[in-house]
């Protein structure tokens, strides 16, 4: 996700529009090669070319989408269907069936024309403004007469008249400030039109996502149930069997050997305690009682208190979350704190929980060694899976040397 809080500034856009001249050229090359490749699909070489070209085009489009999102301050989502593990011919056929691939091609053509044109307007106006602004100096440092010119309503013949170009420069600069950004946002809107998913594509992507997250949720649930069954079977159940045996034996020897019966009773009590302890830890894993008692606020504070390091907690919730979200959020925060303890070597961590009216935000921050990789850690993947069931997401920034910030977001309403 790009940072939508700030629009690129006027001068940042100078860099961008210069970039667009090059990206337009790269795009033209990609388009030409893609057309050749499409023609060559019947021969294997076309397939090979497309396997490379389509991802490159998509990369370029993604870059543009990020820029346009920031200019329009509206996230343009990715329109592509997920290719999964398709390869070779299958993959190319899949690309062909995805309308977004064709729209990308159209975009390449449009961005070559519109992109270069808008960039030219943007850069050209600024260049003219600068040119006029420095006109007197140009006149001064060049051999006399080189920059003599007729501007229509005034003519430059001397150093003093050369200064007359400066207000003109200011006027052009004014024009550039006035319309420059608008031109660039036209460009962004054209990008948006071609690069955002069509309604049916958006629905397709959504359905695909829902199917995946549902399958994940069901799998996770089933695995959880299996784990609980196993824990009960090996733990509490076994202890209670042992307890029953001790009691049975005690009953038998009660009359003949009271001393032995007493020992057996002590044993039975120990078994009962152990069974309780196991049930307790099992319950904690299913749904922590403190979460039921106090909601996410209290439960996160309890987590902080139970952690082996110092955890600063800041919770700002004006109501209670839906129970399933609450539980997922709790386990995700717990997981991030475990990660901090395990990997970060940080002396302390900070947890923030807040709700902005539409989504719940969870943030865990530490100043440890950094270098966490979202794609590698099973913990982080577990978090992503847990949250995806609620359309939530997790992002991690963790440069080497820290700090590490895990940011989680779940759309939901407070009650």
């Amino acid at each position, binding site marked *: 996700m790009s940072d939508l809080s700030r629009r690129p500034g006027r001068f940042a856009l100078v860099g961008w529009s210069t970039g667009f001249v090059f990206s337009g050229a790269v795009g033209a090359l990609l388009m030409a090669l893609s057309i050749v490749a499409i023609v060559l699909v019947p021969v294997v070489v076309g397939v090979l070319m497309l396997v490379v070209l389509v991802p490159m085009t998509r990369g370029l489009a993604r870059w543009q989408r990020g820029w346009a999102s920031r200019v329009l301050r509206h996230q343009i989502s990715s329109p592509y269907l997920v290719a999964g593990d398709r390869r070779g011919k299958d993959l190319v056929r899949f690309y062909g069936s995805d309308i977004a691939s064709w729209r990308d091609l159209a975009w390449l053509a449009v961005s070559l024309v519109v992109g270069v044109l808008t960039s030219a307007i943007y850069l050209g106006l600024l260049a003219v403004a600068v040119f006029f602004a420095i006109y007197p100096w140009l006149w001064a440092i060049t051999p006399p007469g080189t920059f003599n010119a007729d501007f229509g309503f005034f003519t430059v013949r001397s150093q003093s008249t050369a200064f007359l170009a400066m207000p003109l420069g200011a006027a052009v600069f004014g024009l550039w400030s006035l319309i420059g950004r608008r031109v660039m946002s036209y460009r962004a809107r054209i990008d948006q039109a071609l690069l955002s998913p069509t309604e049916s594509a958006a629905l397709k992507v959504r359905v695909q996502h829902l199917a995946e997250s549902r399958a994940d949720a069901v799998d996770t649930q089933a695995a959880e149930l299996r784990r609980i069954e196993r824990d009960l079977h090996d733990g509490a159940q076994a202890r209670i069997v042992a307890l029953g045996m001790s009691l049975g034996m005690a009953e038998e020897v009660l009359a003949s050997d009271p001393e032995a019966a007493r020992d057996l009773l002590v044993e039975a009590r120990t078994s009962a305690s152990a069974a309780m302890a196991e049930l307790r830890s099992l*319950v904690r894993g299913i749904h922590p009682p403190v979460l039921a*008692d*106090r909601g996410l606020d209290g439960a996160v*504070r309890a987590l902080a*208190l139970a952690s*082996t390091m110092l955890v600063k907690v800041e919770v700002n919730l004006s109501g209670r979350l839906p129970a399933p979200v609450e539980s997922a959020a709790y386990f995700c925060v717990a997981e991030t704190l475990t990660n901090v303890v395990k990997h970060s070597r940080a002396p302390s961590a900070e947890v923030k929980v807040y709700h902005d009216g539409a989504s719940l935000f969870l943030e865990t921050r530490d100043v440890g060694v950094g270098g966490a990789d979202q794609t590698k850690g099973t913990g982080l993947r577990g978090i992503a899976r847990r949250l995806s069931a609620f359309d939530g997401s997790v992002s991690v920034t963790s440069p080497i040397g820290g700090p590490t910030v895990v940011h989680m977001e779940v759309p939901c309403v407070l009650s």
Partner: protein
Amino acid sequence: MRVVLAEDLALLREGLIRLLEANEFVVVEAVDNGPSLLQALIRHRPDVAVVDVRLPPTFTDEGLRMAIEARTQIPGLPVLVLSQYVEPLYAQELLGDRRGGVGYLLKDRVSNVASFIDAVRRVAAGGTAMDAEVIGAMLSRRTADEPLASLTPREIEVLALMAEGRSNAAVASRLFVTEKAVGKHTSSIFTKLGLEQHTDDNRRVLAVLAYLNPNN
């Protein structure tokens, strides 16, 4: 000694009444929900209250909240809270008013009758009785933070046992040292935690509190 008891499961309530009365306690009232607990506590002002955390009508931490509420109205009212699970957060809240006379034990500790009765008596006398599991959870914390960082490992051990509510003699027998040695450790703990000016009972509570809540 007069006891008010709050436990919603009839089976356990009857069991606890039997157990307490067999040990020379008088159960003046046994209630099964939060609001009547608060009324009973204020009406009877018992020597000690034995309270289950989870009570109707909310079936959350009603018992705990009512106990804390009662202690704001009757400062220092001795309360022993029982629960199926222990949560350091709750221990911290119970000890929050720094007055002592507080216990927080796992429910299954009741099965060890002698030590349970001992805990009730200790709480009634203004001491503390914290479950070893709470202490254990706290023990795993890094003690890098002030003021506990200045304590030696041995002093931490003594403080942990003190937090459970053990007397110097009990701590001594547990650590296989003389009672005098324990006395030395405790006074060193009090000095390091800056608790010299308080009475011994109150100091023990405050030391435990420092231990349970190092962020304070």
